[in-house]
């Protein structure tokens, strides 16, 4: 599967890369042994309201569009008849087109944040696995426009990596926050320490511990930068 960011799969791959990164292991030797070394990555400003399903990358949506384009008339009729109220309303609003085109338009013009309201059980059958999975994750993990990822880091190991369904119940030693766009720049190779210094990213936690392990912080950023990533937005 393509490593979409943000997603569980991306985070899992990141965990694997950290644990295989000798430079990270060496530079974070002792990290978190006498203090809480875990991190929460707070990804703010996800454009869930501004982005429609049709505006997601083609790699995700093209198979879905193809499935609907090639579906039989009867199948299209079934999908229309089983449409949830939110989709039915959108279908009513999309006048002047053939039924198939109206369905596609109604679906693809739906904002990501409203996707759960328009995707019926019947329609799920037509969704490609990647798209269904990612829409599910956004539904589960997005808190307004923010997603929280948790990393349990201790003594050169990432023991756990998880996207948080209920961030209020998780405590971490450090919280690294930034707008989604800044995270994409970090993954594209921006310097994490410079981003914090310039306040493009915000770091909450005991800075004196980070000062002692600057190479580890740098290697965390560089590891993300080396991970093959496709951005969802």
């Amino acid at each position, binding site marked *: 599967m393509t490593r979409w960011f943000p997603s569980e799969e991306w985070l899992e791959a990141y965990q694997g890369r950290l644990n295989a990164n000798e430079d990270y292991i060496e530079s974070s030797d002792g990290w978190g042994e006498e203090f809480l070394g875990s991190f929460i990555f707070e990804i703010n400003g996800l454009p869930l309201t501004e982005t429609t399903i049709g505006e997601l990358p083609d790699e995700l949506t093209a198979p879905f569009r193809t499935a609907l384009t090639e579906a039989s008339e009867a199948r299209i009729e079934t999908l229309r008849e089983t449409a949830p109220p939110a989709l039915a309303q959108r279908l009513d609003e999309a006048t002047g087109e053939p039924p198939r085109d109206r369905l596609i338009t109604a679906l693809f013009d739906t904002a990501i944040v409203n996707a759960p309201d328009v995707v019926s059980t019947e329609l799920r059958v037509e969704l490609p696995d990647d798209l269904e999975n990612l829409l599910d994750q956004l539904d589960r993990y997005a808190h307004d426009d923010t997603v929280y990822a948790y990393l349990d880091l201790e003594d050169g190991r990432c023991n756990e990596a998880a996207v948080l369904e209920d961030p209020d119940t998780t405590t971490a030693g450090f919280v690294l926050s930034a707008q989604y766009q800044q995270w994409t720049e970090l993954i594209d190779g921006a*310097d994490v*320490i*410079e981003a*914090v*210094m*310039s*306040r493009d990213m915000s*770091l909450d*936690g*005991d*800075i*004196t511990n980070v*000062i*002692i392990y*600057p*190479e580890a912080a*740098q290697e965390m950023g560089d590891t993300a930068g080396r991970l093959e990533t496709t951005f969802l937005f």
Partner: protein
Amino acid sequence: MTQGLQSQYSGQRVNTQSRWYTLFQKGVELGTWNVEKLFDEIGFEQDRASWAALEPAERDQIRYLLSGFLDGEREVAGDAATNLQRIMQSPCLESNTEKEMYMTMLTLTEHKHTQFLDVYMEEVMDDADNYTDLDPRRGTRIPIVRATGLGEVFEHQGLLTAKAASTRDPIDIAKAATNYHLNVEGILARVGSSAISRFPPRADFPLLNYAFKFISTDEGRHITHGIELLKELLEHERAGEPQYQGVERAIVNTLYQDVPYMADFGYMFTDALDDPLELDFNEVLMRGGNLIDGMYNETLGLDVDYMEVISVVRDRYLEINEWDIEERLAEHEQQYQQKRGVAADGGN
């Protein structure tokens, strides 16, 4: 820098369109607050009452913070009156006349800051020995400033400004201006002022807070002067003029030299005494880092190596964590007392 504030008048020897003339005028307008009038108008009563109500450890925390300011202000006032004034006459600088004019305002305000802090500590913080009577410019710093590395920044300032005043070389001027205007005024003073503004409600010091609003405004103009001075030198370097080559490297290297001792200042008034007022060393460090980025990278367009900055701060932090700060402080207090004896008997 000062669009809209340019003079409507023109002179013959003075360039009234110079940015330093504008800074001078702003200093004349804004920098003439009267320390004694402030004492008269606000009074010491509330500050004394708050001081008396604080726990001894909380008082020490404020005492240490203001000690750093007092020694620092005395040093910058002294260097402004002597070395900086001579540096402004350097043939490698533009607008010498207007820069000299501005330097009189800078010197005046720095002396007022010293005046305020000296009297304030004597009037309000008189419950213990403040070790503020001897002059740091004659080799006797306040013990806590010596016990940590903050004094190193001031020593560096004296050396760099004296050398630049002597050689009037652009590289030496860049080093001196970096230490003085960016590191001492732009980072140390602003981080310290920020800590004062974050005192908890039980540490209610209206006179101190009021004065620091004036002091911060004054320092803002000084920092602007420093930034503009360094920009001028960098422009010459970037234009390929041989005499100015090395300015950028000199600026960044001066940061790397000073920054570990600058971090000492934050340590001095927070973790060195378990931070009872919760001024938060993390907040201090982060504020310092943000200021470094803002001045060096964003404003001057330099490329600071943050790994270098953090590495030297890390090494220093690990070193000071091994110290017994109370023992070091006692040692320096004893030395101070000895010097008092020498000073009292005329050195015999």
